[in-house]
């Protein structure tokens, strides 16, 4: 996927997966695998940024003799996700415009080909 577009979407994918339930690094990668390809090295900075923005927070749970860090979505994170969902209509319009094959009668901007 285009790197810039992907970058913008990943935050929301992570917030969305945390909305279902609290989760830890590897589980998020596994859960998101069918949706978007995500590596450890990509996920870590995302979680860190979301944490700094207080959109997620984290806590440690002991698991088979070691600590596992769980992440949880905060109210600010929920709000960011809600706000984004309101914009999905606009994004979809833009996407289908880009996807169109460019013939003038389909062009909603009404421009004729020169």
């Amino acid at each position: 996927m285009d790197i810039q577009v992907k970058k913008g979407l990943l935050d929301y994918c992570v917030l969305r997966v945390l909305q279902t339930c609290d989760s830890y690094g590897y589980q998020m990668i596994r859960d998101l695998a069918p949706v978007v390809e995500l590596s450890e090295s990509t996920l870590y900075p995302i979680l860190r940024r979301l944490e700094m923005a207080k959109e997620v927070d984290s806590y440690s749970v002991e698991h088979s003799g070691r600590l596992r860090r769980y992440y949880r979505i905060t109210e600010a994170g929920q709000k960011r996700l809600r706000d984004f969902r309101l914009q999905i209509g606009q994004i979809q319009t833009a996407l289908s415009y880009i996807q169109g094959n460019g013939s003038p009668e389909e062009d909603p901007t009404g421009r004729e080909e020169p």
Partner: protein
Amino acid sequence: MKKETFLRQLCRRLNRLKREERVQVIESFREMISDRIEEGLSEEEAVACLGTPKEAAQEILNGMPEEKLLKKDRLGPVLLILFLIAGGLSLFWAVRIRSHFPASVAVIGGADGPTSIFVAAKLGHAWGLYAAAVLLLLALAVHLWRRSRM
């Protein structure tokens, strides 16, 4: 590659990150490798899933917010130059004093209260030596202060 080898190399390549941040990245990667091993992969396979330490470090550094990175080191070279000037100056004056004031060196050894003032006055010629000493101390102080902050 073994887990610890991978983590050590990753840590080294993350030297642009602040130290406490680096520790957290390593802990997080340690956890993700263990999770994969728990799922049935061998240690080598689990590590291989993360790519090379170089790629992983690059990706992490690209994604990290600016304030988690160390500032570009501009003071380092300045300190080095300061050290070199101080060293050069003291060498220069040491040679000068030995050739021009061989007696004064002997006097310092035996100087007590009032004489020492007299000697100091004579050694006023050696301002370069004092300057060098001050520069050296200054450079050392800044260096120690910076290390304690890192």
